């Protein structure tokens, strides 16, 4: 990869990071928020992006790698524009989450780690979302959809495909 293709934070981002770092006793604490920024700006955390984050915070690449691979919300692989995350933990399971998840996989024609052909969707099974009163819960790009049903999810997918806001 040539230097020009390497990911690079915008000036505004760098200023934001500078300000953020000051709010912690040590710059290393800013690693997770900065990874979120990188993920937002570059879609996912490629090795180059991780190196960039390491450079910005003056950390070793290994320090960044350890964190990226420990936390499930940091993605090292690209995923669809909409990431559908179905909670299948106990309370959701007791309220039909397994069936919902199976249905959605079939409906989208993809399994976990895959992207629909239109590039719009990926799907994953996740752990308790902390919203068990709304079981089953589906997060769509971290927006909670509670008491989700096959119909409500299909409707959401249709809307996205039609280019409508959800």
């Amino acid at each position: 990869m040539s230097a020009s293709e390497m990911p690079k934070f915008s000036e505004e981002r760098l200023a934001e990071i500078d300000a953020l770092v000051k709010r912690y006793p040590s710059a290393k604490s800013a690693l997770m928020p900065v990874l979120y920024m990188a993920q937002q700006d570059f879609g996912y955390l490629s090795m180059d992006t991780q190196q960039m984050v390491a450079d910005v915070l003056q950390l070793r690449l290994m320090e960044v790698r350890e964190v990226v691979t420990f936390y499930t919300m940091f993605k090292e692989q690209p995923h669809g524009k909409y990431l559908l995350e179905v909670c299948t933990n106990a309370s959701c399971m007791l309220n039909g989450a397994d069936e919902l998840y199976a249905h959605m996989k079939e409906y989208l024609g993809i399994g976990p780690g895959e992207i629909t052909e239109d590039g719009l969707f990926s799907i994953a099974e996740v752990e308790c979302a902390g919203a068990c009163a709304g079981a089953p819960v589906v997060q769509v790009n971290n927006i909670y959809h509670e008491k989700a049903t096959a119909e409500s999810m299909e409707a959401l997918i249709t809307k996205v495909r039609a280019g409508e806001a959800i």
Partner: protein
Amino acid sequence: MTELFINDEEVTVPAGTSILEACRKNGVDVPYFCYHPELSVAANCRMCLVEIEGMPKPLASCCTPVAEGMKVITHSEGLEKDRAMIMEYLLINHPLDCPVCDQGGACKLQDYAVEHGMGHGRYIDEKRVPSDKDLGPFVNTCMTRCIHCTRCVRFADEIAGTGDMGVLNRGDHMLIEGIVEDALESELSGNLSDICPVGALLDKPSHDVSRPWEMKKHKSTCTQCPQGCDIEIESRNDEVMRIRPAKGGVEPWICDRGRYVYDAFRSDNRLLTPRVRQGETLTDASWDDAIAKAVSLLKGKRVGIVFSPDWSVEGLTAIRLLRDTAFADAKVAFELHRRDMRPFAFEEGLSMSTKAIEGADQVVVLGSDIRQRLPILMQRLRKRANAGKPITRIGAMHYRTNADIAVDALIRPRDWHAVIASAMVQLTELGKLAAGMDAWLAKVDARHEAGKLLADALIADSCAMLVGEEIRCHEDAAALIHGLDLLMRAAGHTEVGKDGRNLLPEGMNAQLLSDVFGDVRTSAGTLFDAASQGELDTLLLVGSDPVGDGLFSRQAKAALEKVDLVQVGAISGDMGQYAAVQLPASAYSEVEGTFINMEGRVRVAENPLRSLGEERPMWKVMMRLAQALVHEVPAVNLDEIRKEIIERAPLCAALADVWAGESAKSVFIPSARNKGATLPNMASLNVAKALDVVSRYSMYREGAWARASALLSEAGRIHALDDLIVHPETLKELGLEQGELTVLSNTGAETFEVGTREDVSPGVLFVAKRGVAGDLSGETSVDLQGGQS
């Protein structure tokens, strides 16, 4: 102190000790994997569980501090069940491939499985199969055997300071990973295989070559740097198979240089038989023929002697005895880096122990690439830095250390006077004075702001000053070191007549050398010049390679073209091409000799390896030459040599105690103290040219032994230093661009590729000693010009 009961025995340990350490100290066996006395506690393996009266569940003993009156039980039915279960957990994902594993026979997992395991596994699902890693030429991985104790990760963080190993993922996907390009960025990487309790990280060079139970062990001293680490040489059929840190030695680690030099012991470069030149080639000869040849070149000739300081003190003294009996006028050189020969030169060796240095409030490093030169001392400094204790450094480069350097200043060699002078002014202002400081100060007009940093470090309650090669090789070194002595006295770290600084020596046995050779020594450069000007007939080189090492390679080459060479040594190396005759001397692994390290620690090798060929201990070679030359043998056995040592080296008198059987632990050889106060002699400085030259040492390439080792040579290739570098500002000031540039020195003009780096001092040209422009090391200053001259 805390009193507690371990299995009903009352024991007393310092408060805050962990239960595990209390058990270890009192000889109670508790099994463990992740604990390591030199590393931080991780408490993750859970093998060290013990029961404590009143506690509902067993506790990990490695991370539980003792408490007054605590009742600890280390063996019970419940604990055995727990340990068996831990073994079962650990083994579910383990390949159980002991028969093909190098660690077999020296494996904690295997031992404990026998002692605590259940004998059969109940796991029937698929095993985890992590992939192996490329960790460079020294470390082999077999990650399926990893038990995730994280010792290696903690080692990389805390000891090597590289942080290039880490833990990825979580749960049973957890992986130990190294981020490496060619090799671990560590000169201590070989220790990884030692600290891995199982067969996941293995020694690559000895991989599949030998099994632990085939090895014979020999305690010895590493002479690859003045640290003189305690080593254990493992041999099979008298061949060196590997080198490891000795158990119970002063330091738990050794560096890769000391460890992987072992392949040089059995390389083609070893000198194992006498050889005599016949035309273009050297051919094996009998000792008698070779000695006869040597005599023909030495007898009645004007002889110059150059030797390396890492022979045993007996061997070194024998060199002096030969000189005195056979060549009473001969000048002797043993140091290839010194320009200033005034008396300071002999006062080498540390005035503090490395432990005291680690503990000092302040450490100030002056002009030294400690990581390359003394990796184990660097490791101590790293430990103090990790503990938040400051290190101040002044020198020509921000040498990479893998440690936090609290204060770091870049200066040129020609600035040292001004730095010391500024520090003197600062101390004077604080009312801290030393007799002689005024006179010193009066000779130096210039001031340099880095002196403030030096003074700041000096005013700490305790301060360890480490004086490195940039000063030791300086043209005005005697004056600089005298100035530093004055500073140490003024700051109250030492008394009049003493000096508190630690002058880092070039090699082993520095204390003895100053005593035994003080009156006959000369600069190697002067000696070579004399040879090339026809003032000498023959050079007697004893284990030294002045072309490959040191500052005078250009002069050495000229001399060697001109005069005859009699070579004595363990390694033939590049000197072979010049030698008329070669006499093989035993390697440090093969002698019953005594060694003194830079701190003054004494070691006597006890069960040396047997000779592989016809090589003889150095003292015998020297005595045989004396006999052949003048029919006189000054000493006929080791005892007589040792008697001579005590006579000639009063400072080393304590050696007698060690030879008489006293524990070497209680004996320290002091370094000689500053004899001649020397005032700055600025006029003599060769600074007519724009840039100061500093040459860089590579631990993988320096010394005939290292170059004879294929392993170290490979590491030298991987960790190659930049050939020539300057600070970008320097080029800008000279109106030049990075690239092909002409270097103008006293010996002419040459064109080289010159690179830039921010971490070198402006106004300095850095030369890798073993790089393409290595010969420039002999220069002190040069000019730089654009393009082809």
